[in-house]
C-alpha cells in the first residue's frame, strides 16, 4: 500500500481524473473530498466489503431450500395464498 502524509488542504492525484483532498482534520476524523468521473463508484470501504461478503455468503445457496422460501412472499392481489 502506498502511504502518503498530507496536511489539511493538501491533496493526492490518481491518474489524471481522480483527486482526493484532505478537507479537514478534526480529532480522530478526517474529512476527505473526492473529485472523480461521474461513472466511478465511490464507496466507504466497509460498505463495499460488507456487500462483497454478503455476495460470497449468498453463493452457498442450495436449490432444495428454495421451495421453503416461498411462504415469505407477500400475498399479491390473489387471495388464494394462505398465511403461514
Amino acid at each position, binding site marked *: 500500500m502506498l502511504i502518503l502524509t498530507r496536511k489539511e488542504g493538501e491533496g493526492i492525484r490518481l491518474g489524471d481524473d481522480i483527486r482526493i483532498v484532505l478537507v479537514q482534520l478534526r480529532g480522530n476524523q478526517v474529512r476527505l473530498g473526492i473529485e472523480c468521473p461521474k461513472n466511478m463508484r465511490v464507496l466507504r470501504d466497509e460498505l463495499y466489503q460488507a456487500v462483497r461478503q454478503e455476495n460470497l455468503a449468498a453463493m452457498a445457496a442450495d436449490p432444495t431450500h*428454495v421451495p421453503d422460501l416461498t411462504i*415469505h*412472499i407477500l400475498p399479491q392481489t390473489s387471495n388464494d395464498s394462505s398465511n403461514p
Partner: protein
Amino acid sequence: MVEIVTSRFGPLEIPDENVLTFQAGLIGFSQHTRFSLLGGERGLGYEWLQSLDDGKIAFVVVQPGLIKPDYHIEIQDDALHDIEFQEGDEVVVLSIVTVPPDEPEKATVNLQGPLVINATRNRGKQIILNESFPIRYPLHSAKPEVEQEVKNPAQTAVNT
C-alpha cells in the same frame, strides 16, 4: 448458445437472448460478467441467477417488492448508463437472497446492494445504494402480521 455444466442444475444450454451481461460483474466478483436467470419454479417469485462463467456460482434472487412493498430505490444516471438504458426500456430490480445452509428459515435479502437489470437489452449491474438499507433483511419480516413493524426502511427489521 452458451453451454455450461452447472453444479446445481447439471448441463445447461442457454440461448444468446437469455444471456444477461453484467459488464462490471458483481461486487467483489468483477470477472463474472455473464449470467442467466433460471426461473425453474415460475410463480414462486424466486429465481436463480446462474453464472455462465463458472458453473458452481449461482444466486437466489427475488424481486424485493415482494418481500418489502415500500422498498423504492433511486437508480443513478451512471447505473442507467452502465445498463445501456434508453427511454422505454424495461428495468427490473432484483435482490440477492442469502440462505444459511442449515437454516433456510433464516434467509435474508440484501436491500443495500440490489441488482438493476435492463430486461430489454439484457444488461445488469449491482449497485450499492447511498441510502442505508439492511444488507440482511429477514425474509420472515414479510409475514403480513408483522408488516406494520417494517414501515421504516432504515430499520433493520429483526423480529422473533
